[in-house]
């Protein structure tokens, strides 16, 4: 017989590894689609990210003399690396992924104290670090080359692309839509001109476009997000608020200056917004605990994303926006708490209603 255990003597069939596994499962459709779209180099990059993350986690745990086994198999390192892989250019060299994983696990996670202690979302911290340090590699995009098409690189060629940096001659480099629009708006072109021919909402929806793995299929990512909500891993508050945070100003700006600011669908379907709203801003560790806080957090993430896209130096702002809000999270948690039963919002005991007051 085991020693005295405190109640409850029953437990829901959940565990941290199960939560992580559900998130990874929800990412799978979009990831597989990305693999199909960008072929072997993308698969290699994904493998490198995950492998390096696990090794880095094991090594740091060992060095810091924390228990290795449980922490290693909770799946959190895999998930971080997976999210990072989804936010890299698919044909990026292997060292970019390795460096990113290393940074995410060692600096952004373990140095802060390990699982549950990190202030920033590790994957986004790594992405931002890479973007600042290696702007060229991080913004070299290729037009999709589905693995089934004749032009797609074979397995060996894929290895050469990822590990030796050999880019085949027939690869078409292509800016992401966000990047393209930003550059041309900067050059003073009108929006109709810029978008003519390249703005294909349906392609954007399904994912036939240049970008990172996780920026491709809005539909599949959305499906994954809905799985997370259905499985109660996340609630709708942060994603919906974040989408609203982008949608409202986009709508407003488009009404005021239709010729110079792109509209609603463009913003919602572009870049990493769906991935960010459902998979990144919802990272439990670095997001608020109360629903009120979550709504504020999500909306602010969205608003900042739109602001950075519109006026910032980079075409895409999801990672920056989420990180900024991560930093604000402790403050939000301080001021947004659920109302306690029998107390008002300020925490004072309720005053019983007098007889006949109803």
């Amino acid at each position, binding site marked *: 017989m*085991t020693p005295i255990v405190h109640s409850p003597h029953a437990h829901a069939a959940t565990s941290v590894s199960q939560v992580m596994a559900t998130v990874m499962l929800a990412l799978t459709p979009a990831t597989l689609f990305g693999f199909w779209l960008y072929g072997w180099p993308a698969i290699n990059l994904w493998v490198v990210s995950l492998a390096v993350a696990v090794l880095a986690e094991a090594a740091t745990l060992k060095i810091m003399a924390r228990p290795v086994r449980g922490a290693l198999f909770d799946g959190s390192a895999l998930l971080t690396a997976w999210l990072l892989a989804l936010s890299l250019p698919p044909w990026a060299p292997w060292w970019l992924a390795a460096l990113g994983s290393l940074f995410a696990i060692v600096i952004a996670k373990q140095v802060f104290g390990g699982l549950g202690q990190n202030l920033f979302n590790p994957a986004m911290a790594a992405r931002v670090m890479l973007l600042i340090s290696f702007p060229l590699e991080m913004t070299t995009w290729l037009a999709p080359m589905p693995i089934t098409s004749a032009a797609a690189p074979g397995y060996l060629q894929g290895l050469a692309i990822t590990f030796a940096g050999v880019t085949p001659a027939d690869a078409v480099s292509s800016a992401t839509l966000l990047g393209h629009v930003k550059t041309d708006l900067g050059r003073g072109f009108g929006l109709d001109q810029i978008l003519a021919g390249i703005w294909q909402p349906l392609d954007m929806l399904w994912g036939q476009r240049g970008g990172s793995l996780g920026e491709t299929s809005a539909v599949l990512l959305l499906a994954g997000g809905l799985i997370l909500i259905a499985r109660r891993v996340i609630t709708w508050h942060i994603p919906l608020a974040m989408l609203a945070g982008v949608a409202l100003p986009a709508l407003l700006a488009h009404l005021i200056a239709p010729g110079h600011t792109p509209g609603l669908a463009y913003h919602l379907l572009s870049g990493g917004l769906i991935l960010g709203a459902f998979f990144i801003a919802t990272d439990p560790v670095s997001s608020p605990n109360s629903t009120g806080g979550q709504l504020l957090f999500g909306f602010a993430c969205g608003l900042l994303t739109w602001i950075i896209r519109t006026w910032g130096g980079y075409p895409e702002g999801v990672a920056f926006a989420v990180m900024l809000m991560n930093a604000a999270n402790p403050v939000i948690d301080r001021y947004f708490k659920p109302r306690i039963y029998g107390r008002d919002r300020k925490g004072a005991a309720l005053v019983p209603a007098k*007889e006949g007051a109803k």
Partner: protein
Amino acid sequence: MKLFKFRGGVHPEGRKDLSAEPPIRSLPLPERLFVPMQQHIGAAAKHQVAVGDHVKKGQLLAAGVGMVSAPVHAPTSGRVIAIGDFPAPHPSGLPVATLTIESDGDDAWLESEPPADPFALSPEEIATRVGAAGIVGLGGAAFPSAVKLNLSRRSEIRTLIMNGGECEPYLTCDDRLMRERAREIVEGIRLIRHATGARVALVGIEDNKPEAIAAMTAAAVGSEVKVVAVPAMYPMGSEKQLIQVLTGQEVPAGGRAADIGVLVHNVGTAYAVQQALCHARPLVSRIVTVSGAAIVAPGNLEVPIGALAADLVHACGGFRETPERLVLGGPMMGTQVTGLQIPIVKGSSGVLALTRKEVEANQPGPCIRCSTCVRACPMGLLPLEMAARIRAGDPAGAVDWGLKDCIACGSCSYVCPSHIPLVHYFNHAKGDLAARERLKMKNEATKKLADERNERMARVVREREEAARQRAARKAAAELANAAAKKAAEKEEVAA
């Protein structure tokens, strides 16, 4: 009827099918019964019999002491063979004063006349009789029912709520009681309503007990008792949450249900009240669920108070396999015990023998701040923040986050994916704080005593000094007078 919602809550696996179907059986009368003097919240009862005395079933064994207490009656007829300490149904297993009764096998009741019409009794008289019958809350809290009735008479009670929620998994004792003895329960409810002057009596029953709802509804036809099906959701059977669901009101923090004109009793208590007032039978037995996958034939037993948990398990066919954990009460709030040689008391609702598979003990991991616990808490607390404060050795900090509002329902621990024993932290911290509070009070009392003593000593010294001064002054005055007299005499002599 319009129902309201409470926030949070969880859906634990019910496992009620294990024990819900077989009808209530009587436990074969054990040879010996072990009746603790403290089975309720409040002061322990004081025994009124001596070793060797022969007692009848229902005869007073021990009288209540003070304002909050309850008497204890003989659960069967027989001889008192020992008065002494016996392990209590408590995780500590600490001994409590207990009467041991050797049954004479007759199970003969003490003759007593019930009142002709209990509804003709005054509310005070009903409360007195409920108190004299030793009735306590049978939902588990075991608060003396008469005290509750009397307290409530001071505030105006509009709504009487009968708790038939039974939201704890495994437990089916209230369910079976409502199915089989609905008429008696409704009569008991009507008596309690009469005693409180409440306008309405609502019986809240979770909708996963359709048979109980049907039986109670049928029994309540034509009375002022209204049966309401409430959604099955843990902790529906918690007083605060049931009140919120049925009335939309919240009990003010630090207050009582009576503050908002509500009184809550358990359906089992209503049955005991009916037995006491209509049949003059004090509370000497109760229905107990014996369940868990390790039990051969789970079910509900009518058990005399003082029977050992081992007797109950034996009556249910014993163990199918060695249980991983024995629990008294339900799995969400019950206490683990290490053995079965402990007596059933008035507040015991269940004896569970759980297998390894059922308890699913996992090693706790770090908090991933997923706020699943926040979503589950029916009180609107932030369990993760409270736990973080307590782990950092700052229980007072946890109080700032609402520790005192925690009802220890276990919803947060139940859902935590990291398997953090949150409730363990909370109860531990609450215990710590209470101990500190007591120590502070004790220190203050000692300090007051010491201050008084110092004050007394200082006064004595002051008085002594004062007396000495006065003496000295008197002496000086006398000397002065003497000297003056002498001088005067000398002068006179000179003058003469």
